[in-house]
Structure formats: C-alpha cells, structure tokens
C-alpha cells in the first residue's frame, strides 16, 4: 500500500462488498479484455523519499549552469527572489487549491488575482488586465489573435526585432488558421523600420506587434508605432519587459492597445524555462475579446465586498468552439509570485531594481567597449540588454567564459560571428562585472 493511498485491504474489501461486486476485477467489466494491459508497466522499482532526494541532488550536480555567474537574458532574467515569496506560495491554501470556481471558498485566490490585475494594469498603463497566460510568447500570439477578432482582418505585422522565439510561437498559433504574418524588417539602428511597416500595412492589418525594449534591448518609439498603425486602423500590440517598465514610460500611455509580456522577472525562478507566466492588459474597449480568466469585484447577499470570475461568456467552458481562446488551466501560482514580488519590492524597490539593471548594464557596456575592437552593434539607447560585436567568435567566447565560471551573453549569429547580447541584473556586483570583463579581455587577447 503506497504512502498516498489510505484505503488498504480492510477498507477496500468493505467497499467492494457495499458496491456488491466482491472483487476489484469485476469493476473492470466495461474495459474489454482486448485493450487491458497484460502484465505490468515497465518502470523502475519504487524509490524511497531519501533515495529520491539523493537522486535529485545528483541531477542538480550535473547542472553546472546553475553555478555560473549569469550575464544572459534574451527574455529570462536572473533577478533576486525575496525569501517571503516561496513562503506564501507554498502555503497549502494557495498552493493546493483548484481554480476558484466556488468563489465563496476561494476569496484568497480571487482577491490576489484582482490585486495582480491592478498591478499589471498600472505597470502597463492599460485599463484592465486578465488573470494571466502561459508565458510571454504565447501571450503575444493570443494578443495577435485578439486583434484579428477585434479588427476582423486576417493579417498581422510583426517587427523583426521581436524575439525569434516569440515569432515562432506566433506562427505556431496563427499558421493553422487562415492568417498571414508579415515580418517588418529592422533598420541598421536595430529599431523597427516604420516606413517599411507603413507600406506593409496598406490594404489593412489587424495589428502591429512590437517588443519594448526590443529583443536587442533597444528602446522602440512606441508612440510613433501607435500613430502609424492607428492610421491604418490596426491595433498596436506591445510585448514589454516588466522590469524595464520600472523606468520606461508605460506602453499603454504611449498608445499601445494590448500590452503583454513575460512575468518571469518578477519573482519567478529561471527553472530551465518554466513554469513562467504571461501577462496581458488592454483598453476596456477590447475586454470582451480578451482570452483567459478575469476576476471582478462584486458583493455578497449581505452587501459585503467579494470577488468572482467574471465575463466568463468569453471562455471555452461556456462558448466552446466560439470561445476567445482554448486556455483553461493557466499559471496562477506564478501570477501570485508576481503580485507578492511587486508588493514586497513596491514602488520604491521595483523602480530601484529597474534602475540598477539600467545602470549596471550600461556600466558593463562601457567596460566592454574599453576592450580593443569591441563595439556596439546598434547606436541607439538601450535599457538593460545590449548587443556588442566581439573581435572573436561569440560562440567560442561563451565556451571559454563557462570554463572560468561565467554564463556569457547569448551569441546572435544573425548579426555577425562576434555578436553577443548581454544583460546585467541587480544581482550582479561590480566585482562580478569587472571580473567578467577582465576574463573576456584576457580570452580575446589570447585568442587573437
């Protein structure tokens, strides 16, 4: 009898007697003999708790990446996660609750989502937000579909300076429908070519998808993009880095119609890619086209304030084939991590994190440019991530840096053999930055 099954031989015999079947096998009569598994599943013998702990520590020891000092971003960032977050997340009450279908016994989850929606809407400068999406990339794809529904146009423009992984996800989501995706090139400055976008938008498009700061860390002119796409009667979808929004103007205030992004930088572990959480915010006008769960404030029978899932007629369990999305389970616990992170950091702490990322990435950038023949690839303002060209192969530099304890930036071969995209979070000290610059400098000297 396993440790998770309280009904042993005694109870099972009693229950089978009540059912009136005598033996368990008699419960299997609806399952034809021909499809029943003959014999046992071929799986390893059961492991004890102690053995599993040892096994997992062994796995962890083979993840040498976890020991590297991280200068890599590309959509996932190594931020400090306050200890209190996990403390709250692992409380049974949040952690082992289901989706808040029975609102009267789910006020904790529902109110925290309401607070999450509020914080996301303030951060993005939008009027409303939903309860979350799977991740930043799928949120962008869903935003594109939302624009298609709102505008009844089958074509979207996507900036080429959006993360290539996000562009892949947009394709996977849209290609099976009758939709067209046009990629707008970026100029030599690394920013979207708005003149090209203007031409491509002729004939009508549902949306322009822009990243802010873009994949390369450069700060796009959201207002200009909004003016342009609105002229063509399309929506501006902005995929934003939430930490950058701690210093940069909110896209919603610059004309964006839908603002989405990856919530990982706000209190969620990197964990080799997930679980993460996508956020999505929009203007009230597009609310009913939005995918995902939404929480609203209401009253109980005695007039007390309470919270419920609302506008559910958009969702799959009611609208079925006509739903705004097929999403059901989302990443609620990670959204809770976001709301606790934004609470603990608060106005002062969150802007401080954002500023430190700005200052430290600019400091690294300046230090790298002091190395002979290292140059910026783009000559425009960046926020917390930037691309430099090294006089050596970026790929081999990454391998060499790993040997001395650093996870260097991401090579971007599309921009040249030496192109490397780097980021610095508030976690990195000046000593670590200087150490990395020195190690890279030594490597470049030796390699040339």
């Amino acid at each position: 009898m396993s440790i998770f099954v309280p009904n042993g031989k005694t109870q099972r015999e009693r229950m089978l007697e009540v059912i009136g079947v005598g033996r368990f096998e008699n419960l299997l009569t609806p399952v034809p003999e021909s499809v029943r598994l003959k014999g046992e599943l071929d799986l390893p013998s059961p492991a004890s708790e102690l053995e599993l702990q040892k096994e997992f520590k062994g796995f962890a020891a083979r993840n040498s990446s976890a020991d590297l000092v991280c200068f890599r971003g590309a959509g996932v960032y190594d931020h400090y996660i306050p200890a209190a977050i996990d403390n709250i997340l692992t409380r049974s009450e949040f952690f082992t609750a289901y989706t808040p279908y029975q609102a009267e016994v789910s006020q904790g989850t529902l109110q925290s989502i309401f607070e999450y929606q509020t914080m996301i809407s303030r951060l993005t400068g939008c009027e409303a937000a939903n309860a979350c999406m799977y991740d930043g990339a799928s949120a962008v794809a869903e935003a594109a579909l939302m624009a298609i529904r709102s505008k009844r146009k089958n074509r979207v423009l996507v900036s080429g300076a959006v993360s290539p992984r996000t562009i892949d996800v947009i394709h996977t989501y849209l290609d099976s429908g009758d939709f067209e995706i046009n990629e707008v090139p970026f100029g030599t400055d690394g920013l979207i070519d708005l003149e090209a976008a203007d031409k491509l938008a002729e004939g009508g498009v549902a949306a322009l998808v822009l990243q802010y700061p873009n994949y390369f860390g450069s700060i796009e002119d959201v207002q200009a993009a909004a003016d342009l796409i609105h002229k063509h009667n399309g929506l501006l979808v902005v995929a934003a880095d939430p930490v950058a929004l701690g210093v940069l103007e909110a896209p919603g205030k610059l004309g964006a119609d839908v603002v989405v992004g990856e919530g990982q930088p706000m209190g969620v572990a990197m964990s080799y890619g997930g679980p993460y959480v996508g956020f999505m915010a929009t203007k009230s006008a597009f609310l009913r086209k939005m995918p995902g769960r939404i929480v609203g404030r209401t009253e109980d029978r005695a007039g007390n304030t309470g919270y419920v899932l609302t506008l559910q007629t958009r969702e799959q369990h009611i609208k079925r084939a006509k739903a705004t999305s097929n999403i059901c389970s989302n990443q609620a616990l990670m959204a809770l991590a976001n709301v606790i992170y934004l609470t603990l950091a608060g106005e002062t702490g969150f802007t401080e994190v954002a500023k430190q990322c700005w200052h430290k990435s600019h400091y690294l950038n300046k230090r790298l440019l002091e190395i002979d023949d290292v140059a910026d690839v783009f000559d425009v303002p960046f926020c917390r991530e930037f691309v430099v060209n090294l006089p050596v192969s970026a790929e081999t530099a990454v391998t060499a840096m790993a040997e001395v304890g650093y996870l260097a930036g991401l090579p971007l071969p599309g921009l040249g053999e030496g192109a490397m995209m780097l980021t610095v979070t508030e976690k990195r000290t000046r000593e670590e930055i200087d150490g990395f610059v020195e190690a890279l400098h030594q490597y470049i000297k030796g390699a040339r």
Partner: protein
Amino acid sequence: MEKTIFQYSSPGRIGVALPALDVPETVIPDQLGRNEPIGLPEVTEGQAMRHFVRLSTMNFNIEQGFYPLGSCTMKYNPRLHEFLARIEGLAAVHPLSSDSSVQGTLEIMHKLGEFLCEITGFEAVTLQPAAGAQGEFAGLLLIRKWQQERGEGHRNEVLMPDSAHGTNPATSTLAGLKVVSVKSDEHGRVDVEDLRSKAGEKTCAFMLTNPNTLGIFESNIEEITGIIHDAGGLNYMDGANMNALLGIARPGDMGFDVCHLNLHKTFSSPHGGGGPGSGTVCCRDTLRPFLPASTVVKTEDGYMLRDRTGKSMGRLLAFHGNVGVLYRAYAYIRTLGSKGLREVSEVALINANYMKTRLKPYYEVPNDDGPCMHEFVASGAEMAKKGVKTLDIAKRLLDYGFHAPTIYFPQIVKEALMIEPTETESLESIDAFVDAMIAIAEEAEEKPHLVTDAPVNTPVLRLDEVKAVKDLCLVEPVEYE
C-alpha cells in the same frame, strides 16, 4: 473581509532590502522615462505577509479537506516534490544554457518522457505544452501536419462527442478546424452509428476523453477508433481522466494515435489556484517529426535538447515547458513504480463506485448501466423541480466543510454533479461527504431555505455574479497622493 494591499500602502515603506548600487550611474533620458509613479503598494515584509496569510485563510484547499471536483483529479500533492523542485541546481538554471551544462535536467526530462510513453503505450513525446488545452492544440497540429504531408490537408473536421470538455471544441477552432458533434447513446457512450455516419473524407480527427466525462469507459473503443482509421482520420485521446487507467489500459493499445496527459491531475502536481499544469503529449512514432521544439534525445555524448526541425509544428512556448512541473511528475512516478500506479487507479475506481452506490438512493445517476470508472455524474434534476438547484447543493456542501463537485458539466446531463473522489481519500472522509450529501437531500425536502440560502459558514455569503458583470470592476481605482 480583508482590505486590498493598496489600502495598507504608505509612502516610503519597502518589503525587501536591496543591495546598494555599486557602479556609476548612467542618465536615463527624460523623454524615455515614466512621467508618473507606477502605483505599486508600499508596505513592509511583515505587512505583506499578514495580508497574504489572511487572504490564504479564505481559500479551501486539498490539504484542508475533500475536493470531489470531477475531471479535475484533486489528489494529495506530496510535499517531497516541493523540496526537490527547489534545489538550487535545478531552479537556478537559465533556459538558454548549453546542453552539457544542464545534463541533470535533460536526463529527468528524457526519463520522464520514457515513463509517460510506457504508461500510455506510445513511442514519442513532447513535454512542452503548458496545460491540457495547449496539449490538445499540439495534438491536433501533429495530426494536421501528418495529413498535410500525405496530401490530405483538406481534412478539416474534428469529431467529438457532445459530452466533450469545452477545451476540445475551442482547441479545434484555434487549430483552424471545424467541430462536428457526435451524439451520446442512452448509456452516455459514443453513439457508434452516429459516429459512423459522420466520419468520412473530411475527418481530420476524433477527440475523445476515455473514460468519458460521465466517468464511463467507452467499451466500444476499438470499433470507434477503427471507424476513424478506416475514414482516414486519427484518434486523439483527451487524457484528463487518465487517473482511471494507470497500469490497467493504455491509449496506445486502444487505437488512439495521440494523447495528452494533465501532469497536474494524474501525476500529482499541485493546482496552484488554477495552474501551472503541464499538458505533455504522447504519440505514435509516425508523428514524431512534427513535434514542437525542446524534445530531448539521448546520444553517445549525453542528452541533447532538440530545437524545432524542418517538419516541426514550431514552438508552443518560448522555452521548454513547465519544467518545474516535470520534476514533480518524475518524482511521483519514481515513488510509486508500476504497482503503486496501478494501485492509484484501482483505489480511484473503488472509491468512485462506492460513492455512487451509497448516493444512488438519494440522487439520480443517469446513464448508470454498470460500474463507473474513477468518477460519476449524478443529477439534481428532481430536486430542481422542487426549487433546489444543483448550484444550491454545491453551495450547501461548502457549509458542511467540503468543496463542491464540478457542476453543470457535462452539459448532456441536467443539473449535473460530477464527482471524483481520487485514491487519496480515506473511507472515513468519503463516508463523511456522502453523509453530508444525504443530509442536504433531506434538507432540500424539509427545510429547502437552508440549501437555497447557502453558504452561510464561509468567509462571504453567496456572491452576485450578475452585478460583477453589470458594474464591471476589474482593478482597484487609482488614487495618487
């Protein structure tokens, strides 16, 4: 009642101590910066803890009590898993690390994939889908890509029974396909003749939950999958109810070609108030070329993460899936082994049949023509005629200290109450729940207002959902000082 976090805010408070800036500052250009504060709350760590702990006490959860939510498989979530998933070497890994520096994680992913293929009777797997609905999407794209390669891209109809989960039709739409609904017979199983009449040259796939959403095993499964194969379509199994089948029967042996698994149901990841889950998809080897990015292969030089290849459907998420959830599922399977997994399903079946037997004298169980699998659907239609609706019964259960079953689904049963006990409930807790249900049935006869006024023992009374839509309030109004 708990105030919102914004109401605790006072300028200057902070809940985390950050390191001082130790590099020279670089000016942030005025024209790029924010014009006004964000509007985040300002509280201390202690205030934040108190707020969120108070909120938490207003939540029902599986570690507090019985959660018989049909199709959701609310089983106990082992605490060991939380320790394992948080080991620094697993949690602090960037997803764009080189393969050689993440061999531990890749090994877990590879082995988990093999376990799940063995459990389902398939050969290929993707761990990328974030949840069941995304798994369904991946599954339909696999089928679609395979057909397109064979020159059968014209197949654009997805057949599914009228009892299907809402995600099935919604996913079909997302995949650019049309939904064709197939009738259920008088026992709640697929009407085979209706299926036969609707399967044809336009059939892309048949989507079926087995056991179905009534908790009934589709006994004609081989005939069903045969009809679809003969028509040139493929069979997709929605694995939401896989908790009934571990070590008993495998989708791959029933004629299915693809199936998704909800690791957060059958394989015991906690539901987290709505997610994260994982919608792992297992399939036949012929569909392998079309899998999304981030499959793991074992080579002589160790484990390798494969990016999307030429025929791949692409990418469902930016990275490799809900990896933290995968760790938990791996640990669950390792803890139980083959006998333990079989025991999970055996006891899930015994528990459900026992409940059904005890409840039947008090609640109608439509479509009851023999043993159910891991869940069953009762109907409150008789009571509704007397003014006590299923919604009222659900709310009254909250007063008795239980979570309610899934209600009003599947839609083919009037006033449906879908009940799934899972294997981790004891006979004592099951009996206590049944006793409460019986007491409510009696109240409905004698003192119906007790039921229609419910709940009264909860943090708030019954909430007004109509007002929530009419006077839409989705965010706290902004109040700058």
